[in-house]
């Protein structure tokens, strides 16, 4: 493992974004990719936070949004806690993107301890772990709210996925508001406890986001970047069938005619595309394209 590095306030390398805090950390210790922190552009970073105890839905949401954002080149900042936080890191890692974990204890103290594997993968995957607490310091209770202000300061937008009204997530959102940074939230049912905070924030003026595309529009401006989900690679025949579908063919017959394939080959191709996730069919057999795009050609 790489060595612990230290950034001092007032010296080169200290992230300017932290200076905007009311009480910026005097020193910042870190592990992993130092340049990721020293050259961090908050305009290309998003903090994703949420409850520790969330259902499959919250975790999936955090993970898929983080993954799409990382795919679009944004840095995902979070706190490595259970639930939404770690899901956000996992999503970024899965997309091969960059992610920063801000810890409440020293940068070499893995907390929660069961997240050791995630911690190692963040460091191995070109990410970084930072903390204002010296190496070896255990995470005391009071350190968590303080840690949250650093998470909010490192990015231009804090996204709240699922959380209760009174929670650590609330503190991160409040810090972002104090800094004048954008706050966004994914809405949920008004009767769901885990949607309390996001719904409240939206009522109070936070941006409503449904997916990563909404976040990208907020951070980079509308239309600057689109979430491109690349599916598995396609051979020539499948690519031709997909092109016919994009060209408006809506039935198996139309596909076969448009591509010149036999009924047999066209049906095999359609089933393959469905299995790969490129298309769906409903009970009436209506064929619809999903948002999945064919992967870009590598050697063109």
């Amino acid at each position: 493992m790489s060595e612990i590095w230290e950034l001092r306030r007032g010296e080169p390398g200290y992230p300017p974004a932290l200076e905007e805090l009311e009480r910026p950390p005097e020193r910042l210790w870190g592990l992993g990719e130092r340049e990721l922190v020293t050259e961090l552009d908050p305009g290309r970073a998003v903090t994703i936070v949420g409850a520790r105890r969330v259902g499959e839905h919250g975790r999936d949401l955090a993970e898929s949004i983080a993954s799409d954002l990382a795919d679009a080149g944004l840095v995902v900042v979070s706190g490595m806690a259970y639930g939404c936080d770690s899901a956000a890191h996992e999503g970024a890692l899965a997309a091969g993107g960059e992610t920063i974990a801000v810890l409440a204890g020293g940068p070499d103290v893995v907390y929660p301890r069961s997240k050791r594997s995630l911690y190692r993968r963040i460091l191995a995957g070109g990410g970084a772990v930072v903390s204002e607490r010296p190496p070896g310091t255990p995470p005391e209770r009071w350190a968590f709210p303080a840690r949250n202000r650093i998470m909010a300061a490192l990015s231009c937008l804090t996204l709240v996925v699922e959380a209760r009204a009174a929670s650590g997530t609330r503190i991160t959102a409040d810090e972002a508001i104090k800094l004048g940074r954008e706050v966004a939230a994914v809405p949920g049912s008004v009767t769901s406890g885990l949607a309390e905070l996001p719904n409240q924030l939206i009522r109070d003026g936070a941006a409503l986001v449904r997916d990563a595309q909404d976040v990208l529009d907020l951070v980079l401006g509308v239309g600057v970047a689109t979430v491109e989900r690349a599916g598995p690679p396609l051979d020539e025949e499948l690519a031709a069938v997909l092109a016919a579908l994009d060209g408006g063919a809506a039935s198996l017959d139309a596909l076969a005619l448009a591509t010149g394939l036999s009924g047999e080959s066209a049906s095999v191709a359609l089933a393959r595309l469905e299995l790969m996730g490129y298309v769906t069919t409903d009970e009436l057999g209506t064929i619809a394209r999903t948002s999945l795009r064919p992967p870009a050609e590598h050697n063109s």
Partner: protein
Amino acid sequence: MASASVRTFTLLGIEAREVVVEVDVTQGLPSFSVVGLPDAAVRESRERVRAAITNSGFTFPQQRITASLAPANLRKGGPGFDLAIAAALLACRHELDPSALAGVALAGELALDGTVRSVPGVLAMAERAAELGIEKIVVATESAPEAALPAHLNGGSAKDLRIVPVHRLADLRMLGMAAEPGYDFAAAPRPTLAATAGRDLADLRGQPALRRALELAAAGGHGLLILGPPGAGKSLAARCLPSLLPPLTDAEALEVLRIASACGRADASLASLQRPFRAPHHTVSTAGLIGGSTPPRPGEVTLAHRGVLFLDELGEFRRDALEGLRQPLEDGEVTITRAAYTVRFPSRFLLVAASNPCPCGRGPTHPECECPPGAVRRYQGRISGALADRIDLAVTVEQPAGEALSGEPGEPSVAVRARVIAARERAAERQGGIPNGELDAAALRRYVRLTRAGRQELARGYRALGLSGRGHDRVLRVARTIADLADSDLVDADHVAGALAMRRKGMR
């Protein structure tokens, strides 16, 4: 001799049961009664018999006449006893030689002028007569070719049965004489089994997926559902299906003709025997579709035996009628049980159903469709339930584009049928005659061997498409047929994918 008996048959369902007609003539006030649970048509037989006898140059006795139909506990219906009652009565009076009636069965209706008319079910009667070792069967002239069918198609004991065609009651005088008319098997042409039936697949232009679905349905005996708006060729497609099936074998032809004969429609089938194609209207009653009423009559499922049953506008059929399809689809026969007897009707048919996407027919994606979403779902839901396990294939069709319609005619039925026959032979050899469409879960495990890639493809389908256990089995059955068409022992990934594309979507 004041009493005589002759043999005849009554039809129960599509089977003939032997009935012995005994006539007794005694002194007393002139009367004529028929006993032995006769229905109204049989009781009225007295008037026809009286007039026919008088008009044929015989004398009708002014005595007390009792005709008894044995067994006495079996209900008897229809006009088929006329000829036998008249013959027994004439034998009583020795106007006919009683010994000439020994070993003879008679079946015919009498016209008042003495003409002998044909009755339904002569084919089954001739079969039964041969089984019972009866030497001769006397039938109306026009029934003779029908009575000869078992001998043509089945041979065996049926060949020993002599068929005596008669025009008039008076012809019975020739029984046992050198001048006795006989039906000559050798001179009579055997029925032609038509090479093809229905519309030709060449007429189906510009719909490759639909053609493929028809080929799979024919090759594996899979139930097929065609979804699409009016004018998309659903009905034409269904009518092409009989032409894709292998020609009837002799045994199958006999089954089809036995049913037609029992319904009194054998003549029409004889000219050119084809696989039946039945398309009952959606207002059909349960009894009309499945069979029933008293006496039990075959329903559409039986009339479609060895052929195609086409249910157009499936969503409009009565729910109880569709529920009634369960037994015929599962067992290949209909059992109708009454207090006194049980009849069975064969019902092995290929099921093709067509449905509009929604009640208005335009489809939910059409701008003018105003059907509420619930209605669409309910409409489609009718297709599950009873039919769920027997419809393995679904294909969605659109109105073909103009240029496709004017294009080249498609591959003709004969070419497709050659592949179908080869695939069916493969399956029959492997599975002892059971078509792929009838394989149950245990048989699928036994006969469907997947390659590694095939297994993976199926597993992906199971995961990615949320297939149910039944859906899984349906895909396997179709994949087996695709492999058979490709002349392959193992079911590969392409075969599974082809089956997945034609699976029924959104069904449990």
